[in-house]
């Protein structure tokens, strides 16, 4: 077994897999069960001001035969009494002293923050997570994402917490903001020890087209909720790497958003997260997915000959850059492996209707061919092809010295008009518009 132990901003965890603050961490029963099955840590369901929840709380989007590729909720923070939560935190800590419990918190005034920080730290939590991200219900009362969207306010409240906190403070960021790094910097300014992201994305899950009301329906009405699940991973990954590239202002990151299997987790770690938090996948499949997460991560590390999981953290960050730094001399074209082609012609129609008309058909043979001079190397055909490794993108340039837009800009080597020979679109094959009309 590789070493999966992580020290996250001073919080020691047996592995990087934490349960996110959400329904799966609503009670000592659930957290105890999760730790017993192998979860590393748990962020307790947000404790704070008293709330009332509605009935009918979740909505989901299915894709074809896949259930719950996206999920949202309109549930608020815990509606259980604080003293019950604290009692159960103590009980879990007694039983699992090595598994970190993070207390997620959300209150309003400075006094309330001080009080609740003391209460949960007295119960034995290993860290605090400030919920500045909830984008539904609580934000209408000036909490959650209402705080996360105002960097100044976020910084102030973080500093209140830091006045009394004895354990590391993690600020949970909302993605419902133009630039998440503003919030990440403010957390740093406020004295936070780490950040976690992303919280859910404000969303309407879809509309019941017969009753004409969005999901989830509460007595004929609905409201916006928080979007999560596998579908949001790309958005979250980008925000994680943005925060990982903050240089001197960077804080340790706990990555959240659509993590369901070990691959997702590795991707987050490579982009700079040190722990990952999981919720939707557990709500779908239960705590048992930890078996696959742990074995998958371990196998990956073993296959890469890496002994310690912390070694992979941030390994893809340096390879993530801005567009202007991409090599314009790099050239790939599609190549079809005829022996693997199943003749569905999805590549043909995708390229024909959705890209650059660089795939042709021959009569009496359903296997398409690439028109190399039209191919811009966009990957679309390889993406739509249902057969693994049937279409590959083959490097065609002669390995010239890399030249980026930035290089060209500094050399004054950029097009100034669309007719400029340096412009990209010139010389690309474009069929006659009239040829688009079906001929009989």
């Amino acid at each position, binding site marked *: 077994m590789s070493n999966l132990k992580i020290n996250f901003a001073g919080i020691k965890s047996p592995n990087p897999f934490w349960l996110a603050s959400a329904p799966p961490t609503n009670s000592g029963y659930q957290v105890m069960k999760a730790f017993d099955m192998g979860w590393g840590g748990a962020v307790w369901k947000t404790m704070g001001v008293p709330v009332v929840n509605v009935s009918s709380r979740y909505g989901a989007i299915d894709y*074809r*035969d*896949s259930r719950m590729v996206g999920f949202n909720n309109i549930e608020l923070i815990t509606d259980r009494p604080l003293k019950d939560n604290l009692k159960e935190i103590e009980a879990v800590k007694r039983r699992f002293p090595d598994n970190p419990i993070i207390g997620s918190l959300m209150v309003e005034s400075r006094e309330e923050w001080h009080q609740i920080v003391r209460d949960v730290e007295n119960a034995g939590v290993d860290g605090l997570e400030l919920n500045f991200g909830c984008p539904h219900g609580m934000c209408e009362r000036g909490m959650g994402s209402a705080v996360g969207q105002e960097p100044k306010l976020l910084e102030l409240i973080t500093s209140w917490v830091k006045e009394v906190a004895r354990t590391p403070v993690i600020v949970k960021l909302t993605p419902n903001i133009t630039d998440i790094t503003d919030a990440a910097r403010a957390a740093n300014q406020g004295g936070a020890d780490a950040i976690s992201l992303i919280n859910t994305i404000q969303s309407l899950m879809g509309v019941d087209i017969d009753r004409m009301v969005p999901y989830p329906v509460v007595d004929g009405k609905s409201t916006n909720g928080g979007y999560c699940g596998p579908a949001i991973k790309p958005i979250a990954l980008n925000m994680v790497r943005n925060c990982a590239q903050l240089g001197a202002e960077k804080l340790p990151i706990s990555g959240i958003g659509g993590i369901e299997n070990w691959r997702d987790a590795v991707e987050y770690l490579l982009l700079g997260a040190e722990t990952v938090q999981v919720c939707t996948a557990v709500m779908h499949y239960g705590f048992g997915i930890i078996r696959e997460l742990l074995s998958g991560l371990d196998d990956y590390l073993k296959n890469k000959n890496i002994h310690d999981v912390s070694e992979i953290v941030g390994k893809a960050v340096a390879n993530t850059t801005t567009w202007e730094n991409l090599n314009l001399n790099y050239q790939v074209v599609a190549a079809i492996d005829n022996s693997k082609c*199943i*003749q*569905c*012609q*999805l590549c*043909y129609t995708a390229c024909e209707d959705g890209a650059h008309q660089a795939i042709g058909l021959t009569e009496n043979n359903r296997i398409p061919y690439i028109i190399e001079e039209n191919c811009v190397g966009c990957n679309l055909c390889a993406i739509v092809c249902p057969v693994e490794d049937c279409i590959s993108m083959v490097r065609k340039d002669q390995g010239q010295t890399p030249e980026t837009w930035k290089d060209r800009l500094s050399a004054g080597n950029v097009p100034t008009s669309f007719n400029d020979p340096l412009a990209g679109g010139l010389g690309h094959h474009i069929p006659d518009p009239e040829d688009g009309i079906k001929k009989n």
Partner: protein
Amino acid sequence: MGDFNQPESKEDFLNNFQEVKPLMNSTEALYESARCLFCYDAPCITACPTEIDIPLFIRQINTNNITGASNTIYRSNWLGNICGQVCPTEVLCEGACVYNHQNVKPIEIGRLQSYATAQAIKSGQKLKKDAKKLNQSVAVVGAGPAGLSAACELSNIGYDVTILEARSMPSGLALHGVAPYKITNEQVLAEVEYLKQQFGFTIEYNHPIANSRDMAYLDDQFQAIFLGIGLGATRSLKLPGENLHGNWGAVEFIETLKISQHQLKVPQRVVVLGGGNTAMDAASECARMGAKQVILAYRKGLDQMGAYRFEYEMAKNAGVQSLWFVNPLEILGSERVEAVKFKKTRLENDKLAILDEEYTVPCDMVIRATGQSKQVNVFSLVEGIQYESDGGMSQGKLPFQTTNPKYFVAGDAFNGGLEVVNAVAEAKKAAVSIHQYLQDL
């Protein structure tokens, strides 16, 4: 498999003839439809004689637009439900599915088709377009797949259609000739009833066209006549002993089985002569009726057999044994069939050579699945119908028009005996020809 007891009740019968392609539930339909790749210029459409837009209806099922899906199907094939179940999809649409190139199970197109159309039938979904009524009447002879398809198409255009059916029940071979494990009588009748309700054509049962007076009536009362009369009785092999008790033609046997079900008693030992799909059905059915020994006897070998391989496998799985390279010589017995005497054969340069060695198989019943005769009698009643030198019917100006311009023919009577779906496809085109003929009058 292969161990069936003689069915004593309707329930036993249905148990022995469990459907090969049972109706899907909505979950299975969702999963199966999700697998469809939505191919460009999809090969399944090309492989379908009725050219149903298969990727479209599958996508419609996947988005729970079942009304749209069944409309897509019916627009191309008026017997969408029956065809979904009885079509040899393994060699048509499903055989063309690109997943076959990947050794992935092809999409179960037939079952998806039946899934969508079964709901249309159940709900009585509107099918007929709002066409202006044309004041012309067309007679359709035969309420089989061809006749029904032509009747639907003509009614949809606006014609007043009357079907004249010799039997007391509709659907021709779809009801009387398709093996019960492919479709139940109830399912066939339900679709016909649905189509009748939707299109409003009338079916006059027990109305054979047997003589020139019958034909004169048609000629007098209708502006055009469609002959969907199928084929006649099983051809005789002219073997000594064909008149003994226990001799059956395959088509007659299957028809009796379909109607009598468990009341038909099949004896212990059966020999089925032939190597086509009808032979496979008859043999498989005998095994399922509890016969202890069913022998399929064919003049050539497995590779020369006309039957689809999956049909042969199905018969084999039901317990049918095969006897290759034997040519029937005589059916032995005093009053009842007691045995079949064969001569062994072999292929010499692809030609069948009959050897001297004889071979006798004891049995209680012989089924000839050796093709059906043409309906020459009916055609001879129509004035001016001409034939080509090869025996095929000469075509008039329009597709499926005979040399008597008022008469059109499609289906088995035209093609010599193909699948239900071919009859449906041809008859739809014939109906378009009829429309053109009547418009041009």
